[in-house]
């Protein structure tokens, strides 16, 4: 399994044709206390860059984009009951949704963990 990162502070775990998407620990830290997550429905299809989910912190609402194109095969229902899971475990249990990847070549421009760390340090 490989993990990719975007400049929009999302992470993507890729296993075969399925990509699991979440926001990074840096992102949850910036957002602060998360009180609501609006997830996409199963079967929804997104192009890379589409609005796919919304995360609401105490102070603001933020979009979560589809980092690559695909069809939603699962959304993390645990976030509906416990949105704070995004704060406590952003990069594992706090995942948002899983996509069936339609164009694996879109992964090519994304960062690996080392590059993302460097990117965050530069902010």
């Amino acid at each position, binding site marked *: 399994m490989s993990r990719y990162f975007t400049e929009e502070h999302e992470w993507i775990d890729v296993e075969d044709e399925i990509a699991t998407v979440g926001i990074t620990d840096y992102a949850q830290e910036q957002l602060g206390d998360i009180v609501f997550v609006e997830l996409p429905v199963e079967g929804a299809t997104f192009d890379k860059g589409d609005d796919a989910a919304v995360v609401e912190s105490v102070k603001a609402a933020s979009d979560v984009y589809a980092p690559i194109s695909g069809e939603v095969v699962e959304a993390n229902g645990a976030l*509906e009951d416990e949105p704070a899971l995004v704060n406590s475990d952003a990069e594992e249990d706090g995942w948002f949704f899983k996509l069936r990847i339609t164009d694996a070549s879109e992964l090519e421009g994304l960062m690996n963990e080392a590059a993302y760390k460097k990117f965050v340090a530069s902010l």
Partner: protein
Amino acid sequence: MSGNEDVTHLEEELPLQPLPLDAWHRAKGARMVGFAGYHMPIQYEGIMAEHSWTREHAGLFDVSHMGQLTFSDDSEGRGVDDALEQLLPSDIKGLKPFRQRYSMLLDEEGGILDDLMVSRVGDGAFDGADIYMVVNGATKYDDIGWVIEHLPDEVVMNHMDEQALLALQGPEAGEAMAALVPGTADLLFMQSGLFEWRGVPLWISRSGYTGEDGFEISLPADDAKLLADALCELPQVKPIGLGARDSLRLEAGLPLYGHDLTPAVSTIGADLGFAIQKRRREEGGFIGHARVMKELAEGPGSRRVGLKIDGRLPAREGANIFAGDVLVGEVTSGGFAPTVGAPIAMGWVSLPHAAIDTALEIEVRGKRIAATVAPMPFVPHRYRRKA
């Protein structure tokens, strides 16, 4: 991931000035944002934790961005009271020394230019001024311009821009404040006094913007760090940022100027008629009086109301409010309320739909969520009204 919807209302444009406690906030781990022309701490450890701490213990807020004004009469007469009764709809002549009132500046059409606190000074505080006033930070320069335009020559207004303002709020604020300044134990809600602490003059009023017991402390900016450190050394006190200040005041049903109150809305519609005492309503003689009397007689077109939201999705400023297919209002403040444990909102709704318990809908990202007009405050006030 990126911010959307115009909900980051705590952030404004450059250029920003530092507060007197800028370095202190940063050393305490604050995340700073631009607000009202200043770099201000939006949070230290997190909005939810800071909100809860203030509801349970005592929070220290730096509100030095607010405008602190004094008014004096050169001719030793009562010119200040006459002048301020022109400018403010509240009873100033009947305001006793060391007492404070909530009031506002109205324009000729009765629109709200700002809301403010006005106190009668005593004990020679503020160089012997008659009246002390605290206005909102984001509007202070406009306020000053408006006030100067309407003041007679013998009344002198002083903007104390070398003065800091700290607020200590929460159920343990009384014991924390008394630990440093024992005399404050006798103050009741909306009373003030001049105190001295380590040689520093403190003008302290028992008031605030959280719905909790607490104090607002005006002191020379150069001494602010000394007091902030002394307060935060007490076990009851932690520094609290603007984020929690906003969620606390929303739960307390207190309007935020520039959002819930604007020049487009009126005192009566805003449910702030309590600030206009009977004599002032009857006698008038203040800017905006005609609108107040008209709305007292006929009712305002719309009202500021509280809204309870079904479910977990917050409705935020700018969201439209519907009764069936009819657009009846707009959310002016909204978010998750930590003490309530659910989203709440404040908004303006046309009068036929503004009664308590009216079922309405709010549109959030194309979806309708159910909301009910609710009494405010959402969290009961706990002011110290009796000894």
